[in-house]
């Protein structure tokens, strides 16, 4: 009977596009989550911690980050930690995992560094770990079939970092493997890494699972935020444990339901959470009499979230302004007519959009709305 904590894809030092300054906060959260994982491993008294690739997001992470990660893993004490190089921290030239020795590698850490000898044996626990280190970010090499189980007693666990092959969806050079590869492998459990969402493969003989990233790194990674506690005995049980602290959420708000900035602000305020990254899509029609000021909402609420982005996806409706039929003897009436003419005549969609926005801005200004 063996109990392991299976994690992968922490991507320490990851770059997060579109988050601006919040990127630092997310990276700090990932570091904090690593510390939580270590705490959990100690609390659960696991026999080993396995990291199935992409502990680091790049081979160019800073020495301080490497020191941090090793410092945390060292807290495991006598609990061994087995690390597999993934696609981001692959064993290319200047590999971060190869340089770990230079950072006083803790005694409990073992890294698969030799493709010729992809076996790490823990005699005292009668555990044998296997793992074919990824030598490049892209490869057609099958990380499951490239390793052979040894004929000996004990528990045999394979670490593999690659993609479960789904025809026409999985790239051929994304370290692919199939269900049959897993079922025919003979291992007791296969700890997978590469996919960021938790996913247990529908195998029949050998249990295999992606534990997913312990911390989501994008709005679409809804299945991230877990590690797996795997009990391997006569039966293999995989327990999904929540460790992620950041909450990534997308919200769609229709402008039809709100007329004033304050109303949208109140709606967004309901989601306020300092660990939440919220992306609000404002949809519907950008009506002429609506005075929703997105910058104002962002300015008021940004501090209530780890990250807040508000995307104005409202449709611009200049015709509605024309329908107001304001007298041409007023500047506003004249302005609307002249701008509407220009919009109608414009063939360039970008120019049309610019003119439409100018029309709405001018309309708001000339209607006494403080939109600047």
């Amino acid at each position, binding site marked *: 009977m063996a109990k392991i904590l299976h994690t992968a894809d922490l991507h320490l030092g990851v770059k997060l596009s579109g988050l601006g300054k919040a990127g630092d906060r997310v990276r700090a959260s990932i570091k904090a989550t690593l510390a939580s994982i270590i705490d959990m491993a100690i609390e659960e008294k696991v026999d080993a911690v396995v990291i199935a690739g992409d502990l680091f997001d790049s081979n160019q*992470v800073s*020495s*301080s980050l490497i020191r941090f990660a090793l410092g945390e893993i060292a807290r495991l004490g006598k609990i061994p930690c087995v690390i597999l190089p993934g696609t981001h921290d692959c064993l290319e*030239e200047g590999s971060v995992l190869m340089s770990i020795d230079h950072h006083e590698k803790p005694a409990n850490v073992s890294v698969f560094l030799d493709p010729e000898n992809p076996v790490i044996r823990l005699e005292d626990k009668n555990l044998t770990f296997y793992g074919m280190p990824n030598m490049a970010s892209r490869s057609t090499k099958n990380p499951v079939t490239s390793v052979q189980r040894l004929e000996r007693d004990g528990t045999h666990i394979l670490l593999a970092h690659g993609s479960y092959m789904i025809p026409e969806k999985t790239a051929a050079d994304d370290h692919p493997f199939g269900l049959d590869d897993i079922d025919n492998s003979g291992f007791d459990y296969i700890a997978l890494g590469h996919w960021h969402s938790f996913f247990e493969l529908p195998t029949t003989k050998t249990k295999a699972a992606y534990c997913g990233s312990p911390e989501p790194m994008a709005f679409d990674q809804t299945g991230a935020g877990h590690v797996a506690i795997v009990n391997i005995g006569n039966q293999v049980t995989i327990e999904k444990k929540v460790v992620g602290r950041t909450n990534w959420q997308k919200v769609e708000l229709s402008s039809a339901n709100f007329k004033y900035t304050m109303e949208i602000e109140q709606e967004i305020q309901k989601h306020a959470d300092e660990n939440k990254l919220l992306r609000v899509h404002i949809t519907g029609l950008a009506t002429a009499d609506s005075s929703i000021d997105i910058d104002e909402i962002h300015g008021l609420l940004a501090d209530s979230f780890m990250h807040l982005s508000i995307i104005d996806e409202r449709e611009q409706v200049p015709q509605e302004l024309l329908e107001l039929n304001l*007298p041409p*003897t007023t*500047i506003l*009436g004249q302005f609307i007519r002249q701008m509407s003419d220009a919009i109608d005549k414009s063939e360039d969609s970008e120019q049309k959009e610019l003119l439409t926005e100018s029309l709405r801005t001018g309309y708001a*200004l000339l209607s*006494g709305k403080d939109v600047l």
Partner: protein
Amino acid sequence: MQIEKCQIYRYGKLDRFSSSFSPGLNLIKGPNEAGKSTLVDALTDALFENPKTRKKDVKAKTSWGFEKDFEITLDFESEGLSYSLSKDFDTGSVTLLKKSTGETLDDRKRVNSIVSNGLGLSNRDIFLATSCIRQDEMARIANSPDAIKDRLEALITGGKEEALASKAIDRLAAQIKGLKKTGIKHKGQLQALEDRRTELAYDLEKAKREIGDVKQSRTRLKNVKTTLESLREEYEVKTTQRKNSKLAIDIRETSARLEERFSDLMSRTSNIKVSEETVEKVRNKIAHLPKIDKADVRHADEQAAQRKYLDTKREGCEQQVSDLTEKINLAKPGTALKLMSALTLAGTGALAYYWYRFTAMADASFLFGAGASLVLFIIFSILWSKRSKSCTQVKVKFDLQKSRFEEIEEDLSENKVAIEAVLGKYKFDKVELLKEKFEQRYELDKDIRSEVNRYEGYLGEKTLKELEDELKIVTRDLAIENERFREVKSYTMSAEDFAILETAVDKIKKETGELESEEMTLERQLDFAESGIEHQASLEERIEEIDTQVARKRHQLRVLETTQQYIETARKDVLKSTLQLLDDETSDILREVTDGKYSQVRFDRQSLKFEVYSNELDDWVDPESHLSRGTIDQLYLAARLALVRIISEEKNPVIILDDPFVTFDDNRRRNALKVLKRFAERYQIFLLTCHDHYDGITDNVINLT
């Protein structure tokens, strides 16, 4: 448009209100707080508000104590058709009943269209800006000289009191400037962003370089470590080789020393034993020899030497005596000499005589012969004399020698006694024997001393036991060293090979040292290189954010510039066309309300400042310096009514006047009413008041209580 009837439920003070209205002027009279302004609001909401609104200020208008929101129904006539407009703010429904056909519309947009079309005013703002003159408006105009200009512009702009096209343009310009401004201290938003981006881009490049260096350093470090590992292994092998080789040499040297010491000790102990035996033997020999006084030996020896000397001397003396005896014999003149002297003497006489006698001295040969014989005689005589003298001398010597000989004999005799005395002491018969024995003993003593010296030399400062003990230790050490040597024997190498090994080790050591130094430098570099991909990511994210902001700001700038451009154009166009109409309309109305005192007004096309033509001065004047407050109020009223006509064009909006003339004196009020009456011929007017000034001006009076 003509409003025929109005029914209001649950609207502020008017929780239940119903009234019919007439065409033309309607006087709605009531004391303060009777609900006049509420009625104006209710009419405005009935005409323009969306009953589905969630606006709190609208919802708040519901009368206190009612659960349901308010409801308003307006019956009106527009363009010859009668309608009934119902807005239920509780259900959010709007219905417009076309009375002639019974058709009902509930589409808000269509209903709004019919209403605004009937009014000739498209929205609430225009309505409030033109045909709805509130109670406090005239008072505000009176308090600010620029108010009329601003108000007019607001009206022309689009109705909103707070919206001025010129101010909108100014604000746009300020925003544009705020975005575009360049400089060091007061930079615009765009420049600030771009500057920040430049800084971040610099930091990013630096970080990338550092990261590149770190990558190189890591690769180099890995190579250095690999090389170091193999060098250390080689060093280990070679140093073991060198160490064992050195050990072998050392052992051999130690063994050699020990062997030497062993030999020395062996030799010394052996010699010591031999010495001891030798001394013993010599001592035994000495024991058989008498102890002879050295002085005696010396004395005997001296006497022996004396005797020898005397013997030699006696012999020599004896020889000389013999020789002198012989010499004496030889020195005695011989018979021949004596005979020859006699013969020569006889010959000389015989010849001299014969010559004299027998030759008569004639023959000289005889004379000559006699002479020659004489000469010979002389010679022989001399010889004879000399030999005699010599013989005498030898005899003297002989006597002396003989005397000496006798002395020697005497000395010999004494010598013999002396020798015999010494020899007798030791019972030897010969001096030589004495000497021999003495010599023997002397030599043996010397041998002992010499042997003892040797013995002591062998011992040194140690005892024999000590030497023997040391020999045991040396023997043991030697065995150990030999055993040690056996272990390292395979490492023995020639001096040349050892020198080559030493050079190789030194070279490895030097290379190792250099690589270790490089390793340390690289590790320090890596330890202190804090730049990592996460730092780069952070910078890139911020640059990306700034780029987004810059793009947005640029877009915003283009929007603002376009907006500004179009507002300026619209303003220019409107002021050009509308102001001409406004000039004319306002002048007409102003003439009427001032009893012809002022008959012309003109608005500046750019600034909207206006001038009034003074008939008294026969010139255009600045109203600020020439017109009274009351006249300016009149001018505003004139402009306001003119705008109703201009903006509503051919339509006939309802004009609502909520007690606007409270600041007017009787004369001005009268003139104003005169104008209103004229307007009432075309427009339906609601004049709301709490005063009695207007009593009698119309029969259509609705009293609010």
